């Protein structure tokens, strides 16, 4: 996984709450057996509307998504994270994330930055006044920055320490766990014999 330290990019406001993973990518787009090529399914239903924010030219190069609360609820499909990444997004900022989506983001290297509701409202206002403006997301200091002068926004965001460390270092989870293989083997030796198995 690529290391993530800081990122500055065009931020796209998505003024909706409860953006579930079926909205991020509908099930009919989940049939690929690769981790790439999911960008076509991103917000597929909404994209048929030419006025949908993703279709506007000022957001053509957007890499930061600013969404309402409960982003990524619903299905466990990691394809939702891949669709965002395949399209070019590196960061999603929202007041609350679906648990599984947040976990998947951490594993795939998409930064899910949780901020206060008010921060999202301020970012939305800022982006409405300055369409195509950039936002900087710094993982080391856990801050989101936008704008300049007296209107400037500089707020902290939440991410758990462990995920932050893994993203900063670009570490592979499986590699970390396999370094504890002896603990796993010892645990397995202690499992009761009546626990079920699928092959006999």
């Amino acid at each position, binding site marked *: 996984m690529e290391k993530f330290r800081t990122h500055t990019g065009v931020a796209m406001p998505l003024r*909706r*709450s*409860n953006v*579930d993973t*079926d*909205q991020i990518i*509908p*099930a*009919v787009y*989940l*049939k*690929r*057996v*690769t*981790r790439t090529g999911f960008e076509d399914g991103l917000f*597929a*239903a909404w994209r048929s509307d030419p006025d949908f924010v993703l279709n506007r030219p000022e957001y053509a190069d957007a890499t930061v998504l600013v969404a*309402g*609360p*409960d982003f990524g*609820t*619903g*299905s*466990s*499909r*990691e*394809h939702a*994270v891949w669709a965002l990444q395949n399209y070019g997004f590196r960061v999603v900022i929202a007041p*609350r994330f*679906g*648990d*599984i989506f947040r*976990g*998947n983001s951490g*594993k*795939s290297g998409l930064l899910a930055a949780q901020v206060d509701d008010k921060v999202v409202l301020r970012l939305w206002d800022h982006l409405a006044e300055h369409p195509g403006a950039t936002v900087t997301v710094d993982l080391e200091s856990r801050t989101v920055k936008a704008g300049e002068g007296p209107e400037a926004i500089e707020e902290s965001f939440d991410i*758990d*320490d*462990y995920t932050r460390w893994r993203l900063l270092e670009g570490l592979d*989870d*499986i590699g*970390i*766990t*396999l370094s*504890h*293989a002896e*603990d*796993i083997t010892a*645990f*397995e030796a202690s*499992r*009761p*014999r*009546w*626990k*079920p*198995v*699928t*092959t006999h």
Partner: protein
Amino acid sequence: MGKTLAEKVWDEHVVRSAEGEPDLLYIDLHLIHEVTSPQAFEGLRLAGRKVRRPDLTLATEDHNVPTLDWDKPIADPVSRTQVETLRRNTEEFGVRLHALGDPEQGIVHIIGPQLGLTQPGMTVVCGDSHTSTHGAFGAIAFGIGTSEVEHVLATQTLPQARPRTMAVTVNGSLPDGVTAKDLVLTLIARAGTGGGQGYIVEYRGPAIEDLSMEARMTLCNMSIEWGAKAGLVAPDQTTFDYLEGRPEAPKGADWDAAVEHWRSLRTDPDAEFDKELVLDAGTMTPFVTWGTNPGQGVPLGAAVPRPEDFEDEQDRVAAQKALEYMGLEAGTPMRDIEVDTVFVGSCTNGRIEDLRAAAAVINGRQVAKGTRLLVVPGSARVRLQAEDEGLDVVFKQAGAEWRGAGCSMCLGMNPDQLAPRERSASTSNRNFEGRQGEGGRTHLVSPLVAAATAVRGTLSSPVDLEEL
């Protein structure tokens, strides 16, 4: 201080615990299917890794498979490739697979319990958010993403931060005609779609103890719909009776040892939950959704709400958007809403008791003109059992379509989809925009409401039907 059930099960599975790191949790059962596993197997191959415990892994084909002509090659080439990829991967890595056509094939959350593989006190994961279903047995069961599927395949463990615990205590008893589905929809409407976030929820109290195992599965299945990490019910005699004699349940002395342990899996009297919700089952009624998330629901006897009645601004905006999408006017009685398609099935309500309940309502009646009733058993075993009991004949005589097993119209990955603006009453778990087909409009309902709705053509419960 004592421990909650969830804490007991969690602690029994901690392989390694270190300050500042998530616990490394051992996984007793890993269920896989065709949609969220191909990239995980590819990851193993690229890293030269093996499946650590194929004997704790089970695969089936459910999400994209057709429910018609399921004995022929899959017509859609992309779906076929995905299913063939699963077959190749399970063969290469030595994982047991129940493929289409096998009598044990079916929705992954139906076949685990049905085989007796899901047992109290286990940890169960699957690349599917409705894995919470298995919590009905007193297991910690949750959905994971594909990177985590790969992690479990390679290590049989998962790093997991310890969640908080919540009790949902349901007192009283459910009135006649009110089911576990109505209970959970009522709960989600009250708690909100994010209300369970960060918690493992234990459902308890007299109304929960009264539920059958299949009803408990319906309840736990929808734990994710209010954001919970997992939902579980303490194992009791109902659980043991359900499990005894199932193909993969312990036998003989192993059974006795297992039951003795399972009886210890109860929340201690002095244990403390981080949060508690209390509900009264006695006041519950058939409950249906009007909007585009499972928390947007009302009693069947109520009307479509007005956006301005919501205090929170985000809720108001969401309600307005939902009404537009659903093509509904505020104030319309729910019972006046006409439905095009009724779907009975899914991991929420595709088990034999669900089909029996729907068939009992439909028996001797006809599906309304202009309405389609699609009945999709949750597994091939459920289909065979229903056919043994003659339920397929009841449905077909009423004018319903009787299909093969799979996820089907719950998520519309196979050809079973709604057309744009088509309206469904569905026993499934999600009424998200486009969930059952682009532009489709979903009302979540119980099997009893689904069957009565099919007969009347408008959202209904069995009490609305004329006596036979």
